[in-house]
């Protein structure tokens, strides 16, 4: 079982991110479950969503309490909420920002593997490729590179199934750019455990 928690704000496609990841996993023959945890239904409010991926059918309905990966779509949430809550020391963290992880107020990162805590400028990539500041699909490209939980091809297929053609193509391009950014850094760091 691989469990992912997404943090963001209402309007940033946090729920869609979890759904796209579940769809990509489904297209690769896995069982997957995506679901939201709405704090409140208004634009700008903190929103959490979850995705579980497993080779067996998933019955558990509790929120993801101990994620294997956390995706933060809005860096302004860092410091406001504990985005690392429940994240295993071996877990992955991907934050939407152009700044390095070390510059963020994440608190004690002791014990976490630095090569698994990463940032990617998803909003900038979204503006460049999509023309709108929607970072969700972009970050999934980065997550695919960071964790290997889904392939970029399956993610592209999921995006294509979900969005109409021109928008899908732009999102796939942005996700691919994030994938290359993270995968490129992976290559520089052999200790990375995308295959672990």
């Amino acid at each position, binding site marked *: 079982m691989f469990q992912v928690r997404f943090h963001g704000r209402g309007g940033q496609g946090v729920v869609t991110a979890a759904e796209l990841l579940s769809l990509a996993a489904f297209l690769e023959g896995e069982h997957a479950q995506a*679901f939201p945890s709405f704090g409140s*239904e208004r634009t700008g409010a903190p929103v959490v969503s979850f995705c579980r991926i497993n080779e067996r059918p998933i019955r558990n309905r509790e929120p993801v309490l101990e994620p294997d990966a956390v995706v933060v779509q809005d860096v302004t949430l860092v410091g406001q909420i504990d985005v690392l809550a429940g994240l295993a020391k071996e877990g992955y963290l991907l934050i939407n920002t152009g700044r390095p992880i070390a510059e963020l107020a994440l608190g004690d990162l002791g014990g976490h593997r630095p090569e698994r805590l990463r940032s990617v400028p998803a909003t900038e990539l979204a503006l460049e490729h999509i023309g709108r500041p929607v970072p969700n699909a972009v970050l999934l490209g980065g997550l695919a590179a960071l964790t290997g939980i889904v392939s970029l091809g399956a993610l592209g297929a999921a995006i294509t199934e979900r969005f109409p053609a021109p928008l899908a193509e732009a999102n796939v391009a942005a996700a691919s750019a994030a994938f290359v950014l993270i995968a490129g850094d992976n290559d520089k760091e052999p200790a990375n455990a995308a295959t672990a």
Partner: protein
Amino acid sequence: MRRQLEGSRAVAEAVARCRPEVVCAYPISPQTHIIEAIGAMVRTGAIERCEFVNVESEFAAMSVSIGASAAGARAYTATASQGLLYMAEAVYNAAGLGLPIVMTLANRALGAPINIWNDHSDAMSVRDSGWIQLFAEDNQEAVDLHIQAFRLAEELSLPVMVCMDGFILTHAMEEVDLPSQAQVDDFLPPYSPRQVLDPADPLSIGAMVGPEAYTEVRYLAHLRQLDALEAIPRIGTEFAAAFGRDSGGLVHPYRTEGADTVLVAMGSVLGTIKDVVDDQRDVGIPVGVVGITAFRPFPFAAVRAACQGAERIVVVEKAFSLGFGGVLSSDVTMAGAAPHHLVHSVIAGLGGRPITKAAIASLIERARRGEVGSLSFLDLDEDLIAGELARMAAERRSGPVAENLLRDLASAPHRSRETGRA
């Protein structure tokens, strides 16, 4: 065809394949996605010969459904929570008139305090209305129960409410095997009404009945509910033969063989409980769980049989009757599944509070040690309650309870329960 779908979308697709002729509903979270999807399918013609009627309220939605059904149309609607309360008078009328309307109830808590999240309070509020009430464990069963619901409703001439947990199921995206139109057409014949309003053959429906026959009309309605105890498992068996999977029926026992402790529950929490049961069985603890699919009519004999041999029964229920206690556990006790003092009611998951595997595992452990009373509340925040009780004791004008508790939580943010929050 297996697809990765949001629960609401999957149910909308299933209802579409049942060829409804009139759909009338009013939006309310967490049911809205279902109705929006059906509305779009009617507009594009994906559902043929169907009228989607926009109305101003849930009361109107059920009233239109009643009119449509009485005129011989296959009628569908959906609601939740306050929407169900607002349509309550018409809900009772639909059952009393014997009209086979199918309604999705996307289960949600009731106000006040206003709360949009899941529990079963809404379904419990109309449990005596005469509707058949079926509870889905996952989105596959939600799909399957809707297809069975039209068969059941129209065979018995009774309305059927398919209950699915709001947000937990309606907003969960997971794998669902959607039957084809041809499969559904084979399973669900066109609606042949027992009574119909027809200008060419006029009659009236809905007579006023005084003391001379009211009891008899109600008694006959009760008999029809009891007929459903035979029809539900039969239709479930036919469904399994046609679609190749078990869905529906009266109860779903899981690993109850030799269990000293049997949990009883309804809806999506059964999945979480089954995971815990597997964990416990792996280490030799004899526990099992019985899922109740048919809540009305209540399957006394099936519940009794499923719980046979258990030393204790722990009913995990997402609603309760204020000043009384658990509703489901009361029914389980009535079934004679175990002596009253061995049936434990545990109120859990109210207003969307997560029910975790850890909490269920701890509950089982405490129940087997004899530490669970006849009525208890899972994960109750004792400090929060003590604070408000102290405030009420200290001053007459202690203020509104809900606002007080939220203020207490805000002043102690480390105690906030919401996942992912500080």
